[in-house]
């Protein structure tokens, strides 16, 4: 499987981007050249130079350092939000798919209802009532993005249910919960994994847009979205303040999408012929 993934140059590119970002986020305090919160009134809005590789912002903070710390926010939001949405989606999807009938109907109608809300506005509404801490944002993104996983898992479990080993597990007297967790879900993991990786990209985008609108991660904590907001007002004099976070978001989302799609090609047996 790894060899097939390696044969896909786009997926490899995606994987490299993801791994590098992961490393950057984890090692942020070690590799950031400056303290991201350190004001320096003498070096405000400086263009990229040897001391400040990506220049400084309107408060004299080092943009590269802030970008590096911003990667932590993106990574954490991406993974935690997707963790929440995947957990909810798998639990509800597996329940719906396994039991069918009225249980399935109720869960799937709930999914339909959730899908009718425009996600960003739903999140904005929630954030208006809760304070915009990074934890609340991750929760809200997770709670509003599980429907895709739910449908996916439901379909997988429904088809698995017809397989003999599921009937065999029942014939051995196992409880439904055990059959779902032990026998159904492990067989449905591949597509869930792909959708989770693509979901990370989505969550990062949502967090960035929220922060850009000032409703996400609050300054002084650095996030690519709020660096971009600061850059907006000084675009004429300090292009680096907007371009850097913009590019970072673009590359990150691209990286996760490339990796996700590469994995899908590898894991989906219907595409094996290619």
């Amino acid at each position, binding site marked *: 499987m790894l060899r097939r993934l390696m044969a896909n140059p786009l997926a490899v590119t995606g994987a490299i981007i993801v791994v590098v970002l992961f490393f950057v986020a984890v090692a942020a305090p070690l590799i950031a050249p400056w303290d991201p919160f350190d004001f320096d009134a003498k070096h405000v809005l400086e263009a990229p130079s040897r001391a400040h590789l990506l220049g400084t912002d309107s408060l004299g903070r080092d943009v590269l350092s802030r970008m590096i710390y911003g990667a932590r926010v993106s990574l954490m939001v991406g993974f935690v939000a997707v963790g929440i949405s995947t957990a909810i989606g798998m639990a509800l999807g597996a329940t719906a798919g396994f039991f069918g009938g009225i249980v399935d109907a109720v869960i799937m109608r709930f999914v339909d209802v959730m899908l009718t809300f425009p996600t960003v506005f739903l999140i904005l509404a929630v954030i208006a009532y809760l304070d915009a801490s990074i934890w609340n944002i991750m929760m809200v993104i997770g709670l509003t993005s599980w429907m895709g996983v739910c449908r996916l898992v439901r379909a997988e479990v429904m088809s698995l249910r017809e397989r003999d080993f599921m*009937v065999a597990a029942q*014939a*051995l*007297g196992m409880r439904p919960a055990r059959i779902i967790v*032990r*026998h159904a879900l492990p*067989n449905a993991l591949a597509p869930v994994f792909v959708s989770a990786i693509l979901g990370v990209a989505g969550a990062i985008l949502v967090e960035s847009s929220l922060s850009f609108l000032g409703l996400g991660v609050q300054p002084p904590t650095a996030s690519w979205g709020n660096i971009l907001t600061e850059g907006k007002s000084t675009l004429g004099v300090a292009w680096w303040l907007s371009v850097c976070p913009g590019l970072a978001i673009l590359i990150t989302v691209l990286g996760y999408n490339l990796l996700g799609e590469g994995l899908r090609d590898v894991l989906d047996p219907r595409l094996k012929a290619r």
Partner: protein
Amino acid sequence: MTTPLLEVENLVTVFQTSEGVVRAVDGVDFRVGAGETVALVGESGCGKSVSALSILRLVQAPAGRIESGRVLLDGVDLAGLPEPEMRKVRGARIAMIFQEPMTSLNPVLTVGFQIAEAVQLHRGLSRAAAWAEAVKMLELVEIPDPAERARAYPHQLSGGMRQRVMIAMALSCGPELLIADEPTTALDVTIQAQILELLDGLRARLGMALLLITHDLGVVAERAERVLVMYAGRVVEEGPVSEVFSDPCHPYTKGLLRSVPRLGRPRSKLDTIEGFVPRLTELPSGCRFRNRCEFAEPQCAVVDPPLGKFGAGRGAACPVRIRDEGRNA
């Protein structure tokens, strides 16, 4: 007959389909004595497997359900048991093995784990003890190098091996009745014989009853004591294998036996039964075999014949032949 371990009385299992309600099992009665081997034979779609799944209450809802009838295990009606009690019956008292050893094992778990899981569930053993028991079961089903094989995944084993694993899993909790749904259909002929030999040997050794579902009359002749012949959801003939095979009563059984190819017979076109099995949504009135029957009489279109008893433990759902052949109750 030995004391009945399992008694199925007037079992009716229906499926809701787009063409209406289909009675896949339509009033089936039979008994299996403790330690006895009973064969359930019939063509594809005649209700054999559905009967077996109905016994374990595993017919998939909401499309399928058991409409009426009783399934008594040692006198206790399984149809009325609450689901948690039923789970204690499944696997522990009645176990089942399936036709396709390729698909009836979970591809992502080792075979040892799958056997140990059943053991842990019903016998309350610790993980380590259950694993040891799993290895012992693999040894019992004559898998070479069982400790090593227990760590294998299903795709690493051959079809025959996998069926042995299924048998090990089914027997791991010491069931009183094993339902084997076409256990050898998907296997090579040489492996078939081995698996049947193994099943039969283990049945005798462990003293359990075996309900063998098959369409292979050769298997029936070799392994079973009694045979039940099913046609379109009904049992049409039952009795001891030797008697039914040497002296069939129901025209369908006669037809089935005639259509078995035999060595040494002059080579000629193989006998078949004229016509097709009727669709369950379009059953004829009266006897459901009458359209294909050479002995059909006008009354056959009127009366749906019950299983008429005669001789020593024999029965046939054909009053015409019972009368004409002078069989007495």
